[in-house]
């Protein structure tokens, strides 16, 4: 630490070094680490009224985590409802991530390898513009689209594909479409950056040696773009499983997203320790899953970029 | 004002790797001194030690007799011209040149005045408001020099400043640099891996290889009397033969190089360490030292066959083969030296033109 500071001073001078150290430590400690630790601490406590906090009853407990696993009953039964929601959330997030990867890969490839100059810039702009629009409004647009009298139902019924309106909201179709839509950009850009740096000649050489188009992708492009794919998937997965706005607006009424449980414990439930415990569960499970997949694909977190 | 520089046992190590190996050196004030060596031999590292960006692991750098350890680059009387010039792309030419004055708190008016003077010196008058990107390579070069001169440093350090330029411009800039040095009378320390550049411009040259200074001397000494095999093979073209010393009477050696009769080679006081009978050696003979034998009884004569010829107008570069060994031969194209393709040809060289050195590392071609 002291050596680091001396090194910074030697390079930047005293004033600038103090600024650098101060800004970074403020961020890392006050904004990132301490709040997380406080939340972790909170998740091991009872939900006490303010007057009793710090009092004799304020002791550490596993009660909040126990609740997640076993529910309110004192019996050994599993809290299938909440655990089920967690699994459903993770599964849906995986599904959305894979869906995004499949639809974004061709776009990123075309963008990176067949467009140049002004055209590429326009395409990129066209990709970004929808994301300058509020997340709530994007979800709202899907609500309109998939409503009973929405365009999809009207078109489907107009073409005679089905004759009573399909409840896309209750079926979670709207939610998945909206979530996939919400994070497309976070998938495309890492893919684009990775593919863009691939030398065209490598593709041509593979062609030359008789590889057909899917072999070119499977053997040359995808292995090369692996870090980009990994970071795109990580981003989309983490953000999807942590999404709150889209599930609140597009989710079916009886089908909760795990973040909504956290929200409920916090707001209507008024039970902060339990909300913290649920948030910790979400965080830990997601990180574990990402690390596991990264290990499987042999990429490191340092390769994640935007 | 000028200051002399001395390096005393300077080592630079990056972890396990030794970039500079015990450098000892004195550079007089007002001298034009060059470092010459292949890529990666530690030239830039040595220069960074002098300018203060790199502290030597061991040893001392002295400028004007003062030990420079702990003195930052902004406190040393040196100005460095970077390998890539390092002009500030967001500043105008004049603001680039005036930068050293700006950071010293010189008033805007005086800065401008000095910048205009310097623009005059580098033959770019009135171009101070241009952007860096609007200049040609040679012009950028001159701006970098002007910027370095703005605070009147005692020592100007130049790191391969001409390497990015084309041949024509490079030759032009050589003369110009030399002229500027004469005019301002500073100590120039110049880095290059182009030996033509080093030989034409420098008062003295240090030849480096793998972090070691192999030889220090003026251009003539380095070319005519190299002291190590590396210098002999790195500076200029050279033919090298493996040989054994048969006898050495202090004045002339007899060397068996496997080409028939042994060769007589003179010892030279400025040359490398003396060789004793029985020693293995490298025998160097420059292409221009070889000549077509005029008579049968010439000394150091041997028989060769024609391989190929490269015609360069005034010079003819011929490759001959002697007992399986290719030798280069340069002849002036005066119409007298006909070589018949299939007949054996006799070559010889004067005993004073051969150089026998302890076998050592050769520069890769």
């Amino acid at each position, binding site marked *: 630490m002291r050596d680091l500071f001396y*090194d910074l001073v030697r390079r930047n001078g005293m004033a*600038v070094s103090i600024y650098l150290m101060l800004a970074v430590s403020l961020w890392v400690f006050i904004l990132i680490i301490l709040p997380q630790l406080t939340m972790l601490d909170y998740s091991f406590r009872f939900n006490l009224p303010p007057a009793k906090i710090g009092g004799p009853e304020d002791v550490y407990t596993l009660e909040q985590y126990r609740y997640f696993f076993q529910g309110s009953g004192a019996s050994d039964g599993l809290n299938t409802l909440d655990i089920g929601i967690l699994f459903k959330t993770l599964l849906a997030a995986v599904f959305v991530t894979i869906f995004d990867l499949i639809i974004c890969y061709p776009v990123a490839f075309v963008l990176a390898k067949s467009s140049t100059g002004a055209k590429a810039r326009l395409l990129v702009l066209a990709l970004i513009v929808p994301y300058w629009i509020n997340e709530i409004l994007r979800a709202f647009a899907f609500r309109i689209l998939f409503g009973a009298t929405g365009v999809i139902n009207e078109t489907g019924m107009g073409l005679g594909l089905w004759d009573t309106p399909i409840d896309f909201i209750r079926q979670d179709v709207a939610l998945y479409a909206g979530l996939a839509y919400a994070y497309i950009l976070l998938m495309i850009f890492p893919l684009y950056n990775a593919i863009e740096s691939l030398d065209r000649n490598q593709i041509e050489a593979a062609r030359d040696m008789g590889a057909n188009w899917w072999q070119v992708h499977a053997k040359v492009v995808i292995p090369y773009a692996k870090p980009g794919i990994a970071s795109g998937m990580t981003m989309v997965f983490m953000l999807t499983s942590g999404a709150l706005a889209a599930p609140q607006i597009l989710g079916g009424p009886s089908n909760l997203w795990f973040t909504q449980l956290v929200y409920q414990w916090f707001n209507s439930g008024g039970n902060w320790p339990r909300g913290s415990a649920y948030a910790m569960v979400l965080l830990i499970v997601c990180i574990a899953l990402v690390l596991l997949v990264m290990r499987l694909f042999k990429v490191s977190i340092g390769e994640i970029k935007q | 004002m000028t200051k002399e520089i001395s390096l005393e046992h300077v080592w630079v190590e990056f972890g396990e790797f030794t970039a500079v190996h015990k450098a000892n050196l004195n550079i007089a004030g007002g001298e034009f001194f060059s470092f010459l060596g292949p890529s990666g031999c530690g030239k830039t590292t040595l220069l960074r030690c002098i300018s203060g960006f790199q502290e030597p692991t061991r040893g001392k750098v002295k400028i004007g007799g003062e030990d420079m350890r702990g003195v930052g680059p902004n406190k040393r009387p040196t100005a460095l011209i970077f390998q890539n010039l390092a002009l500030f792309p967001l500043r105008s030419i004049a603001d680039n040149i005036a930068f050293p004055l700006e950071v010293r708190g010189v008033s805007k008016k005086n800065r401008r005045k000095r910048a205009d003077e310097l623009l005059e010196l580098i033959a770019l008058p009135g171009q101070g408001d241009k952007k860096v990107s609007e200049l040609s390579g040679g012009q950028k070069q001159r701006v970098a020099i002007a910027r370095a001169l703005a605070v009147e440093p005692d020592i100007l350090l130049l790191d391969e400043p001409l390497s990015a330029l084309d041949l024509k411009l490079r030759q032009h800039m050589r003369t110009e640099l030399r002229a500027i040095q004469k005019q301002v009378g500073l100590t120039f320390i110049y880095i290059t891996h182009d030996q033509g550049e080093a030989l034409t411009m420098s008062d003295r040259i240090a030849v480096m290889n793998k972090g070691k200074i192999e030889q220090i001397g003026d251009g003539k000494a380095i070319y005519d009397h190299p002291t190590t095999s590396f210098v002999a093979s790195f500076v200029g073209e050279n033919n090298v033969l493996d040989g054994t010393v048969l006898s050495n009477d202090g004045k002339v050696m007899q060397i068996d190089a496997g080409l028939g009769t042994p060769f007589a080679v003179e010892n030279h006081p400025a040359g490398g360490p003396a060789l004793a009978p029985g020693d293995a050696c490298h025998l160097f003979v420059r292409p221009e030292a070889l000549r077509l034998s005029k008579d049968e009884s010439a000394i150091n004569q041997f028989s060769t066959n024609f391989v190929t010829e490269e015609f360069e107008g005034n010079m003819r570069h011929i490759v001959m083969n002697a007992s399986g060994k290719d030798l280069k031969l340069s002849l002036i194209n005066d119409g007298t030296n006909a070589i018949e393709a299939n007949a054996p040809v006799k070559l010889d060289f004067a005993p004073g033109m051969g150089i026998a050195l302890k076998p050592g590392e050769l520069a890769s071609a």
Partner: protein
Amino acid sequence: MKMKSPTALIPGLYLTLFFAYLFGPLIIMVITAFNSSTFPRVSPWECFTTDWFGKLAADDKLLAGLGNSLLIGVGVVCVAIPIGLAAAITLSQVGPKLRAALYTIFIAPILVPGVVIGLSTLIFWDRIGTLFNAPYESFFYDGTFLTIFGQVTFIAAYSMLVFLSRIQRFDTTLTEAALDMGATPTQAFVKVLLPFMAPAIGSATVLAFLASLENYNTTVFTIVSSSTFTTVLSSKVRYGLDPSISAVAVIIIAITLIGAIIYECRNRYNTKSWALVVAERPALKVATHPGTVAVILGVLALAAVMFIQNHDSNACTAQILEDKRALQQKLMEQQSLNTPQQNVPAPTMPNLGPVGGNEGGASAPSPFGNNIFSPENLGTNTPNDQ
């Protein structure tokens, strides 16, 4: 002429489909903002109206939220940009081992769910506030401050990424050159590195401001009893779909498009080839100057606002209302005339839309019901849920 083989068309076709997915929902949302139907939909088309915009202008909650959002956005920019810059510079100067460790910490807030960040920020400052026995009015409990802290946590990471990609192209010999010429390290920082970073500071500022404005997941926790544009919007959406939300979207999309067009114009205007084209045509040069384009777009936007203010669709909506009333009258008459025999299919009726001037979804037959998260609604079926 060479005929393109059909496979060569696939990429183009795919891109078209993809962009349809990207823009389709937005376009439909925009259209619904101009339909007088009280439920946001394209068909049946009732009347062209601009009344939904008028309704927005009168929405005090939304305007108050917008005010808070702008304030928070400015606060976030002021804190996140210096932090992001410092982080990027630090990363560029430390050794590879420490760099990897720091990078992981710095990037974490982007990956951690926003919900978790919001929650932990709220708890942390609550704890600190309790520790100091701070009164409830102090900033430890203030939604605006908490939201700024919460958002900075990850927006600083976004801006750091922007700075990092710029600083990677920085030639460190420039700093060395400055030092060599006698600049102090601080001078070298201020006069060489900062000017180089200036464009990145600009784009990071825009990015940070937009990210702050649109954030929901973190803000919904940290805002406490106050509100922002996004939280107001979200409760509007959750408690009743109504086309004035589409009108918000129209405004935001318009602003975005204007921004994008000016940005693109500026890019084109600054290209070398365009500089050659306009070199001898001063009129064209002025006409294509991004400033001119901005003024033209501004005038157009103003005209649109005037149009919206003056457009009167009352005649049409009254007519529609009349028609509905008549139709309903007829249905009722039919029903009362031949009571049990003739079955009027029940679902058709709700689709006619509201009768009378009531707004919102309360009595309107919205699909799937509003307010799906209010507990009373769990499990209750609206007419269309079968």
